[in-house]
């Protein structure tokens, strides 16, 4: 299946490049519907890889690349469950998400996240699976999970730690503050900063350059330089599930879900 149009994501293979578009309103929250479609993408990926050099992931929504996990869905889907059942439900969800993220991370194609505006939580974690992040000047990044009593659960910290210094990771994780594209480039997270609205165009230009290289050589180079921290990713799931079972986390999620505050993203 070289093209697909879903409710949350779509993809198309053309001229050696797969473009995967996110388009679930309001800001590409990653929930089970998105996950179902990402799993379809994974099933289609092997059939496209031999015809492609690059994969671009981008958002079609003005609101941003992605606001991250669908916290409302996670919260409401576990309401009324016994603690053990809720933890098992969340673990199953995380296992599915990690399978998607790990497969994109290990994809033999060169992968590019073209991001703008809100790139928070799970959205940042998705971008971090990619080899390159190209961001426009409106991009803003954040790991807000500690505000809810959680740690990032979609592989964010092991992947961020792989790419940048531990001191910076601690700053971003432990303060939960958001940061702009200038900071993101300073710390080495973003490879190119472009004018507002131009991230996808520049990503396409970069992908076009990649089609000139031998596919196998590029894949070997990537495999050599980009190890996947599987052990830490497993540990992340365990810690997330332990924290999810705590009353403070339920309180934090409830507060977020029910918030009418103008700044619900703040603690």
């Amino acid at each position, binding site marked *: 299946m070289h093209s697909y149009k879903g409710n949350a994501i779509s993809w198309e293979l053309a001229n050696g490049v797969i473009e995967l578009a996110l388009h679930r309103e309001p800001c590409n929250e990653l929930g089970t519907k998105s996950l179902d479609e990402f799993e379809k993408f994974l099933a289609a990926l092997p059939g496209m890889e031999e015809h492609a050099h690059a994969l671009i992931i981008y958002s079609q929504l003005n609101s941003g690349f992605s606001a991250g996990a669908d916290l409302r869905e996670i919260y409401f889907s576990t309401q009324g469950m016994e603690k053990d059942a809720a933890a098992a439900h969340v673990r199953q969800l995380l296992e599915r998400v990690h399978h998607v993220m790990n497969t994109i991370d290990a994809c033999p194609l060169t992968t590019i996240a073209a991001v703008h505006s809100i790139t928070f939580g799970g959205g940042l974690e998705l971008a971090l699976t990619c080899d390159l992040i190209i961001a426009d000047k409106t991009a803003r990044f954040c790991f807000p999970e500690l505000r809810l009593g959680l740690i990032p659960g979609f592989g964010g910290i092991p992947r961020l730690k792989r790419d940048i210094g531990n001191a910076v990771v601690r700053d971003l994780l432990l303060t939960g503050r958001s940061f702009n594209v200038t900071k993101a480039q300073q710390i080495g997270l973003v490879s190119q900063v472009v004018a507002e609205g131009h991230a996808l165009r520049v990503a396409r230009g970069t992908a076009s350059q990649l089609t000139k290289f031998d596919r196998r050589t590029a894949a070997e180079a990537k495999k050599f330089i980009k190890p996947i921290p599987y052990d830490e990713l497993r540990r992340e799931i365990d810690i997330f599930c332990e924290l999810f079972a705590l009353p403070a986390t339920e309180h934090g999620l409830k507060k977020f879900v029910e918030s009418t505050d103008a700044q619900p993203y*703040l603690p």
Partner: protein
Amino acid sequence: MRTQQQTTDEILDLAAAQFKVPRESLSQDDDFFKKLGIDSLQALSLLTRLEQHFNVELPDYELQGVTDFRTLAERIQTRL
């Protein structure tokens, strides 16, 4: 170095341009959420513009509870 009044004026200019409201309709004591009709995500885009314009970093926890342009200018002024 800018004075706080200059900082405030530049914030009002940027906010008016970004959210397409008449500059003369904004004053420093306005609640920018109400006056600009923006939500939290749009406020973040304003924060990004302000950081780039003034070349500062503004941790968003420092802006907790800040809703008026004057206090916003004070927060920025401390980092210039």
